């Protein structure tokens, strides 16, 4: 408003100035006319009075216009200052109007990045911020739709794997069962027939392992991989795994030894799952190491729990592969070129299982020297007692 006053002031000043100049001009003309009359001897007292009057009139005009100028200058100055303050206020207001929507956008972008795809912003403020807000909301809506479709596909995949691995079990039961029936009459079979049936049984076991692994992974993905941990003594468990694996390592003339630190504290685990992890690690060590290699399983107290190490002096794992070793369907070179019976899922499952226990799994390997896989498990609180197995499974298929 003050700016408007300044504009009006300047306008007023210009109009006054024009008035003044034309008045002065008229006054000079009147005076000149009087002087001409005096010079021609025509003018008398009246002409001299006119000159005096016009001189006085111009002095008056000059006084009044300088007052006007000063007033106008003050008015213009005040107007300018007011204008600047106004502009400043306007600018601050503008920033304030932009600031809230922008801050909201920053917040919302953060939430969106963190995975909250239902995030939307309130559209408002200037047209630019409103456009930005609308664009953001559209983008978030698209992401949400994509995410929900991906989730749906993921669920379908999990369901499919769960169903498939269940449905495949019945025919597999028949194939394996009848092959076993044949083997019960091996005395009446030829050597070639026995070998044929052995191949069928071998592949059945491989299929079962694959199905179990796939099922575990699908469960893990669906958040349905559950454990029932209880205070457990690790020593006998490790001894049991080593004993059960000895037939295989003996077949390759590999040495398999265990070293269990005395007085290990109890760990809180589901024994069957720890057995599954250890069998997997020892099987890997056995399958990837050459004949006459040595494999050692140690259990000892570590900083944050009890650590089980499975070490071998096999070929080791190149750094590039080591990085991805716990990812699914990743297999060592030997697994791709030699006859290694793995599924490429064992370590991925072991990692899921160890983490489900609140533990950690890691690997240390050097090409040409061998590999060590370490599993760290949480210790039971002091005073905990070992609980006996509560499972009523009396016939568990081989894992």
């Amino acid at each position: 408003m003050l700016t408007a006053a300044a504009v009006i002031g300047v306008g007023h000043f210009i109009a006054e100035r024009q008035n003044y100049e034309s008045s002065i001009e008229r006054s000079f003309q009147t005076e000149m006319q009087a002087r001409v009359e005096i010079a021609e001897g025509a003018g008398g007292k009246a002409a001299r009075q006119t000159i005096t009057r016009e001189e006085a009139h111009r002095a008056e005009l000059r006084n009044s216009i300088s007052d006007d100028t000063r007033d106008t200058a003050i008015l213009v100055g005040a107007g300018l200052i007011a204008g600047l303050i106004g502009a400043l206020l306007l600018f601050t207001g503008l920033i304030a109007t932009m600031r809230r929507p922008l801050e909201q956008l920053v917040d919302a972008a953060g939430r969106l990045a963190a995975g909250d795809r239902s995030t939307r912003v309130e559209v408002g403020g200037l047209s630019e911020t409103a456009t930005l807000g609308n664009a953001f909301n559209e983008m978030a809506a698209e992401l949400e739709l994509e995410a929900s479709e991906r989730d749906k596909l993921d669920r379908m995949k999990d369901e499919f794997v769960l169903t498939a691995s269940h449905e495949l079990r019945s025919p597999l039961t028949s194939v394996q069962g009848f092959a076993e029936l044949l083997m019960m009459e091996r005395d009446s079979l030829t050597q070639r027939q026995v070998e044929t049936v052995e191949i069928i049984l071998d592949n059945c076991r491989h299929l079962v392992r694959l199905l179990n692994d796939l099922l575990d992974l699908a469960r893990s993905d669906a958040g349905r991989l559950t454990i029932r941990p209880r205070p457990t003594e690790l020593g006998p468990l490790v001894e049991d795994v080593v004993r059960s694996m000895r037939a295989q390592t003996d077949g390759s003339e590999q040495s398999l030894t265990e070293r269990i630190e005395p007085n290990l504290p109890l760990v809180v685990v589901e024994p069957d799952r720890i057995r599954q992890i250890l069998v997997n690690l020892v099987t890997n060590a056995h399958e990837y190491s050459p004949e006459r290699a040595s494999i050692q399983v140690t259990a000892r107290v570590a900083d944050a729990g009890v650590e089980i190490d499975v070490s071998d002096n096999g070929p080791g794992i190149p750094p590039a592969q080591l990085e991805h070793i716990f990812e699914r369907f990743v297999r060592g070179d030997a697994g791709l070129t030699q006859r290694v019976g793995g599924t490429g899922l064992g370590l991925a499952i072991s990692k899921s299982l160890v983490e489900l226990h609140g533990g950690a799994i890691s690997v240390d390997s050097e090409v040409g020297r061998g590999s060590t896989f370490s599993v760290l498990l949480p210790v039971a609180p002091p005073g905990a007692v070992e609980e006996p197995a509560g499972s009523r499974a009396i016939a568990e298929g081989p894992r």
Partner: protein
Amino acid sequence: MTTVLIADDSETILLLMRTRLELAGYTVETAVDGQEVTERIDPSSTDGPDLLLLDAMMPRKSGIDALRELRAAGVETPALIVSAHQDPGDANAPTDLEISGYVTKPIDFDLLLGAVAELTAQAS
């Protein structure tokens, strides 16, 4: 003579289990679903099978539903549930039923025959 009643909707699995159990010296009866099991067993008779071997999932009536009906009618015959589930604690394992144990597929017959022997020895 120890009698085992097996229920499974797969003819092949029935044949497999029947063969293995008969080879081990048991008398075997078969049913194709839970409905047939509940129709076959008379709760008032003491002459029924010594052991039930029921598939958890069958059309018409599942092994679990059949067993639930039998238990409600007072039948106390020991029962093993055969399940395609890898883990007996998984999914549909009811806790309200008297179940002697779970058998997972593919069936480990050494373990199964051991359990059958144990349960029928208790029964007789």
